[in-house]
């Protein structure tokens, strides 16, 4: 029984493994402006900042870096969480992250409300979720 279970587990891993050849094939050069995440926001100072940065580092090292650049959004969900905590507080940031997590898991993939930026990432900045109509940004601005 144990052997069968291990076999099923291994088969599952094989089935759901990332197909790397699609990701690393030759691609057209894009000259669009880069909406790369602002890494200076990814690490937060202070006590809670240390915990968050440690969490982010652990997540990046053990999951994100191995899994590859799979988040469809820019900034990525982890970056979004760090930025949202930095721009608001830990409770609001956590709520914003919960909302982002659900939107990322959208079963219908209806994502027409987002603008596309480089590498076909969906532009979804933290500023849009601060509950201020004036701070909403539709296009990438430096």
């Amino acid at each position, binding site marked *: 029984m144990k052997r069968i279970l291990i076999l099923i587990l291994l088969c599952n891993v094989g089935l759901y493994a990332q197909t790397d050849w699609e990701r690393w094939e030759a691609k057209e050069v894009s000259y669009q402006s880069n909406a790369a995440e602002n890494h200076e926001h990814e690490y937060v100072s202070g006590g809670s900042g240390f915990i968050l940065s440690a969490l982010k580092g652990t997540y990046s090292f053990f999951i994100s870096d191995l899994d590859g650049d799979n988040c469809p959004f820019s900034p990525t969900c982890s970056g979004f969480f760090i930025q949202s905590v930095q721009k608001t507080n830990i409770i609001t940031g956590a709520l914003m992250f*919960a909302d982002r997590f*659900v939107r990322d898991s959208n079963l219908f993939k209806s994502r027409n409300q987002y603008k596309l930026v480089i590498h076909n990432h969906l532009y979804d900045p933290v500023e*849009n979720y601060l509950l201020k109509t004036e701070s909403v940004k*539709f296009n990438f601005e430096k």
Partner: protein
Amino acid sequence: MKNKIKYPIILYIALLFLISSVKGICQNNVSEINVLTLENRLMFGNYLYKEHDYLRAINEFHDYLRFENNDTIRFKAADCFHKMGRLDEAADNYKGLFFNSTLMSEARLAYIKSKFDERQFASFRNLVVQKTNFAEKYTHEIFRLKNITYLLDNTFLPERNEFIESFPQNYRTDIENFYNRKLHPEYKSPVYASILSAIIPGAGKIYTGNIGDGITSLLFTGVLSYLSYTNFDNDHKTRAWVFTGLAGYFYAGNIYGSAASAHIYNADVNFTYKSDLEQFLNSVNYFLPEFGFLK
């Protein structure tokens, strides 16, 4: 034999003479032509202006104006600054035509437009009311510009009929449409969206038009709530509390997200209104006359 050698030499010398003389004439002609005449500068400046190469057109116009006084060219130079968005320089150049010029009224109108383009609408309205550097010939156009500012900034709107009647008859329907959109924007209430999501998770998102996100929220919260219920029911306390915590977390996140979604919707309404209005106003040149001398 001697002649056979002589003729080619004579021919060669004759050819050399001919070529050198032609070259000499050509050089003389080229050196005599001065391409940098005032007329050529003006023609080239006008060409650049038509091609929307305003930066280089200004240089040509300024070189021309060092020797000739021409109000049209002064106006064109100011217009180049205006079109490039260098509004302070444009205003200063228009001011040079305010007195003793045939284009006095046009320059004053263009000056007022440059002030309008600064987008400081409160100070612009003061400028119009105080009639500073006012062009009496274009009173209607200037007051119309003042009325347009009410559509563009966040102040109150003037009385409807008086406002709409200041615009030409054939554009009044469009203006009334923008007036209504400004007066009653089709906003979604963030509070209402939050309340809807508190009653039925995801309903607030559906209310703001994000149907997929709304249904996903409902499923997330629903499945986690169901798992917590069944685990409590089967006395798996630890797991039940974990699922309850997660359900509560996503439930709260969904309420927050619905309010944020309403704000994004409202920002989109504002953005669409402003871009539609700007597009319309540009298409009618802000109801200002197009000056023939600029063509």
